[in-house]
């Protein structure tokens, strides 16, 4: 009888520990998924491509990128690797995690150039883009 009671206690404790472990693992998975790079890569790539298409030539765009840069830093991505513009393919590539990133196209005949002084798209906490009409 004594063994039975002790056994039940152990079983109940294990049951609760396993339940808590299960919910912790699930919560960690959900939090990681919701704050993960995949969602933001897609959103930022599409937003930037749409902004480029809406812009007029010979303009300069500055977009605050603080949150994305924080995420990239957390995931070990260098600021200069966060955004790439392929002027030949007319594509914007955003990379905030260890995956290859997300690519989205724009249809305007523009060459997107980085800031003249630094030659980079990321200046401080912002994206800096000069929009020029392409000669090709």
């Amino acid at each position, binding site marked *: 009888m004594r063994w039975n009671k002790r056994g039940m206690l152990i*079983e109940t404790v294990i049951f609760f520990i396993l339940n808590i472990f299960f919910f912790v693992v699930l919560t960690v998975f959900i939090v990681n998924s919701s704050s993960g790079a995949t969602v933001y890569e897609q959103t930022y790539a599409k937003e930037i491509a749409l902004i480029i298409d809406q812009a007029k030539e010979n303009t300069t765009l500055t977009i605050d990128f603080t949150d994305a840069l924080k995420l990239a830093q957390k995931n070990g991505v260098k600021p200069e690797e966060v955004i790439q513009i392929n002027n030949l393919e007319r594509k914007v590539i955003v990379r905030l995690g260890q995956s290859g990133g997300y*690519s989205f196209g724009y249809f305007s005949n523009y060459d997107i150039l980085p800031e003249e002084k630094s030659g980079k798209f990321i200046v401080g906490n912002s994206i800096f883009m000069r929009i020029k009409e392409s000669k*090709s």
Partner: protein
Amino acid sequence: MKGKKGGEKLISIWWFMVLIIVATGIVIGVSAYYTAEVDVKAVEADILSEKVLDCMSQNGFVPEGFFKDNFDILHTCKLSQKVFEAGSNFFFRVSLYDSNGKLIKSSQAGDASFEKSCAIQKEVTAVNFPICVNKKESVIYLDRGDIRRGELQIIAGSNQYGRRLIASV
């Protein structure tokens, strides 16, 4: 555990099965939600139609070059030749009608099949079909030196999906 009935057991194969079913459901649901495509086709089609309308109606006037045979609409509207090549994810058609509704001239670029697909899309909801935007604007154009009123109709569509890239090793 000895002497216990099956129903009294807390940790049992059924409990593990319930956990597995719940976990699988949550993992599938969360993954499906966060890997889902953000659909911006309607926004893109709208931007494209605005861009074309902007260059085809300059202060309400249709550019004279539109009536020439060698008129390059992509160059005039500052749109990429490469993006609108065969197999494009975009399409647009500009049609100029006179005041009686007679077609004067039409010009298009991109994947022409979008027009039919968009007509189907109006009737039935189809997931991977392009989304089109239709716009009309009253314009003035020159016809052999005479100023005439007409209507510019623009149909623009997009079927662009982004691409997740695989990390290079």
